[in-house]
């Protein structure tokens, strides 16, 4: 029940920030659409899963800042590879055994890998993530396990 109210409030805030028109008619249309979406979400049994118990804490902010730095560095590395005249690439598929316990943690890990250019998570088999990497240096960014440890540290729900 609490989740449903929370969803309604955040949807209302989202609608208000997107709209910019605050006449009675438009506002009532917004309220109707919020209620309809909440009803649909409830019908889909969305709240049974662990997705909605995810709350944002300070350590997540730290992870985002670290991830932003990683994304920046990887972008520079990939840009260098693309601009180098000889195109020094050695594309490879690598497997990495991840240590996350929940599905959500695994999704965060796989998405973080894909977000950093030069590495794309291609498949997930149980707890093994299969990653395509552009060269050995970028592959090492996944294989050294730093990102894996950080995601496991923030995953605790």
């Amino acid at each position, binding site marked *: 029940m609490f989740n449903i109210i929370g969803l309604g409030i955040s949807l209302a805030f989202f609608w208000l920030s997107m709209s910019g028109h605050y006449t009675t008619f438009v506002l009532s249309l917004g309220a109707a659409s919020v209620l309809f979406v909440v009803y649909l979400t409830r019908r889909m049994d969305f709240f049974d899963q662990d997705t909605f118990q995810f709350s944002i804490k300070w350590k997540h902010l730290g992870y985002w800042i670290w991830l932003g730095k990683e994304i920046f560095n990887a*972008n520079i590395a990939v840009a260098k590879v*693309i601009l180098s005249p000889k195109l020094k690439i050695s594309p*490879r*598929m*690598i497997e990495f055994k991840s240590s996350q316990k929940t599905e959500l943690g695994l999704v965060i890990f796989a998405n973080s890998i894909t977000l950093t*250019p030069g590495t*794309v998570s291609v*498949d997930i088999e149980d707890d093994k993530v299969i990653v395509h990497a552009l060269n050995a240096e970028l592959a090492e960014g996944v*294989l050294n396990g730093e990102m894996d440890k950080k995601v496991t540290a923030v995953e605790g729900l």
Partner: protein
Amino acid sequence: MIDIIINSASAILMGAGSVFILIGALGLVRLPDFYTRMHAAGVTDTLGAELLLLGMMLQAGLSLVTLKLVLISLFIFFTSPTSTHAVANAARVMGLRTVSIPEDNLISKEKN
């Protein structure tokens, strides 16, 4: 004075974003196969798009527009890896091979 600083900062950010998008486009042409081209597209998705949005936020100042731009950048961060993974996974399921991988390059490193 403040205007000049903000305008030039936003110009630098947008210029850098455009350069990264150009690099991504160049990579799409230069790289040899599907999987490697995906990495070039990643440059466009992440740093290119985010730098452009950051430059636009500086132009918009503290307003509703900036809030919308922040939301757009968040959505890009959540949706772009998901769609990239979907496309890459489809290619793997279809059995698309990567170019020129020697056997000894296939590293498998076990943890724990």
